[in-house]
Structures are given as C-alpha cells and as structure tokens.
C-alpha cells in the first residue's frame, strides 16, 4: 500500500497536533515543510475585500426598500423571530393551508387578467462596457440578486447583453459591473431614487411589448 510518495504516519500525527516533539527531527522537519508550503500558497491567494460588504448591503437595502413599498405586506415577509407552542403551531399550519388554497383560487380565478399563464415579454438589456470583466443585471424581477442574470459580452464591441422574459408591469433594475459597481441604464426612459441615495432605472412592460424603457 505504501510508496515513496506517501506521507509518513508520524508526519500526519504531527500535522494533526497529536504527537509532541519527541526527537524525530526528520518527521518534524517534513511536517513543518508541508505546512510552510501550504502557508505559502495561502499567502499568495487573492481574496475578496470590502466590495463584498458593500454589494451585500446594497442588495439587502434594495429589498428592504421594496418591502416598504408593499406596506403591510412587508410584515409578512420580513425576517423576525417568533415563538409558537406546538398546539398553536399545528393550528397555524392548518389555517395557513386553508388560507393558501383560498388565496390561490382567488388569485387564479377572481382577479381579471391573471392566469396560470401570465404573458411575458422578451426584453433585451444592453450596456456598453468594454473594460468590464463581468456584468450582470439585478432588479425587482430577480430580488436584486446580482448573481442570477449574468450578461454576455461581444468581444468585438464590448457590448454586454441579456434577454429576459418579463411579465407586464413596472420593473426597476441596475447593471452590476465587476461585482461592485451598480450602474443605472444610460438608455432608460426613467430613473427613480431608491431612497438610499442611489438611482434605479425603470422599464415598463405591457402585454404586447416594452411600453417605456
């Protein structure tokens, strides 16, 4: 089973911290050399910095802003700590199941224009950014998640594009350049303040196509 390239069992034990220094200098030197090599690899790694913090808080603030606009609905979807007794929890589950069925029936049959097959329109987004390494699209349609819709680039023109199926209605969005810069669409018809000092671009989609962009 063993061969010349296998690590001595003593070296494994030293690396696991299970073997005290006992004079086996060869094994100790081998263990130190191994760990030094790994340390050298780790020291050379490029690691993400503060741009991650900013991007995370941007997404969360955007979501919070959207929840505020939903009014009382935000009470239902905002994270909060709750405590339920088992009996109450069972009653709550049964109530929720019944309510869910009722709401679904109301949604699908009683609201004009809303069906299981709500029409969508294919919308193409474009951003000229020849110097960018990666660009994605974040907006109200994907929970402001900058990882969900990555755009493709034409190397010849530096034009980043993506085509998405969007339902009718108003959607807000931004381009995310290199994971850290949130950029409004320079070609958008309308821009709105998101309440946190940033401007969002707006697109309005109708049943037959883009109404305003």
């Amino acid at each position, binding site marked *: 089973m063993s061969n010349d*390239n296998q690590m001595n069992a003593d070296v494994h034990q030293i690396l696991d911290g299970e073997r005290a220094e006992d004079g086996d200098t060869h094994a100790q030197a081998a263990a130190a050399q*191994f760990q030094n090599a790994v340390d050298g690899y780790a020291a050379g*790694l490029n690691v993400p910095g*503060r741009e*991650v913090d900013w991007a995370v808080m941007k997404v969360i603030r955007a979501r919070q802003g959207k929840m505020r606009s939903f009014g009382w609905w935000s009470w239902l979807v905002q994270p909060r700590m709750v405590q339920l007794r088992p009996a109450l929890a069972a009653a709550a589950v049964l109530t929720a199941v019944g309510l869910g069925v009722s709401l679904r029936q109301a949604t699908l049959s009683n609201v004009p224009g809303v069906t299981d097959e709500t029409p969508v329109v294919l919308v193409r987004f474009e951003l000229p950014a020849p110097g960018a390494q990666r660009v994605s699209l974040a907006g109200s349609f994907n929970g402001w998640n900058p990882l969900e819709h990555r755009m493709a680039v034409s190397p010849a023109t530096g034009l980043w594009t993506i085509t998405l199926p969007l339902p009718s209605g108003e959607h807000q969005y931004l381009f995310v350049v290199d994971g850290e810069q949130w950029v409004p669409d320079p070609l958008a018809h309308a821009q709105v303040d998101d309440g946190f000092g940033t401007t969002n671009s707006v697109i309005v989609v109708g049943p037959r196509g883009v109404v305003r962009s």
Partner: protein
Amino acid sequence: MKERASLSDGAAVERVLAGDTECYGVLVERYRSRYARYAASLCGDADAAADALQEAFVRAFDSLTTCRDPNKFGSWFARILTNQCHNMRTRTRTHVALDELDVAGSDGADAQLTSDEIGNAIGKALEALTREQREAFVLKHIEGYSYAEMADILDAEVDALKMRVYRAREVVKEQLRDFA
C-alpha cells in the same frame, strides 16, 4: 457604527431581526474578513469567492430566523458559505482528475520546486480533491481550525474529518514530491 461594531454576534442578529437592517453590515464585515481566504481557497479564485460570499450573506439574511443559536452565527454562516462555494465551483469549473495535472514538471521527483510552482501545485491538488476533502483540508491547514471547530462547521464527526484531511494531504503530497 462603532457601537454596532462592538456587538456580539447574538446581539447583532437580534437587532437585525428587530428591524435594524444596517446592523447586518457588522456581521458581513466581521465574517467576510474571517472567511474570505476560506472562500477563495474553496472556489479557486477571488471573483468566484466574492460571488459565493455575497450569495451566502444574502441567503443568510433571508433565513436569519432559522439561525437557532445567534451566538454561533459564524459557524452557521460558514455552513451556508461552504455550500455556496461548492455551487460556485460547480458552475465555473469541471473536476480535474489528478492524472491530468501537470504541475510537478517533467523533471521528476527530484526537481526542486519554486515557491510559485509549489503554490500552483497545491492549487491544482485542491482541484483534484473531493468537496469534502477540500473543505476539511482548507479549514485544517489554511485556516488553522481544530478538528472540534471543523466538526461544528462541517457537521461531521472528528474521526471522519481526520480521514478526509489524511487523504487530502496524500494528494497534496503527491504533487509536492520532494517533500518527505
């Protein structure tokens, strides 16, 4: 902000759940700096690690109510991050078989490796590990965690983790043939 920065994990989580969303920034800064190297090691590059960290923090925020012990937010977050790193790696890479790697050069076992070559060899060896071996090796040898701490993060038995690290070391050693 200074007052927020001194909060314990548990206190910060409670404030976020009470509606102080900005307090989440304290946890983000604290654990981004702690786990950035871990993410980069698992993902293989800084861009993928940044994406994994971002996705993990947003997911953690969305499911913060399921963090049973807010004082252990770090371990709980590390589990989410580990999964995100593996997902990110799956999206961006294909598994590399060890025998496809060419990092030790053609001069054989006696060749002396430069520090760049050593780093390259270890990076390629990490790619050849299974996800379980990779996360265990990184936590043990790059992050310097104890097996007990690793067990908490990876939700695995200490003996199983020792075996994963053992096997991972053998793979890395295979790439660093002039080490004993």
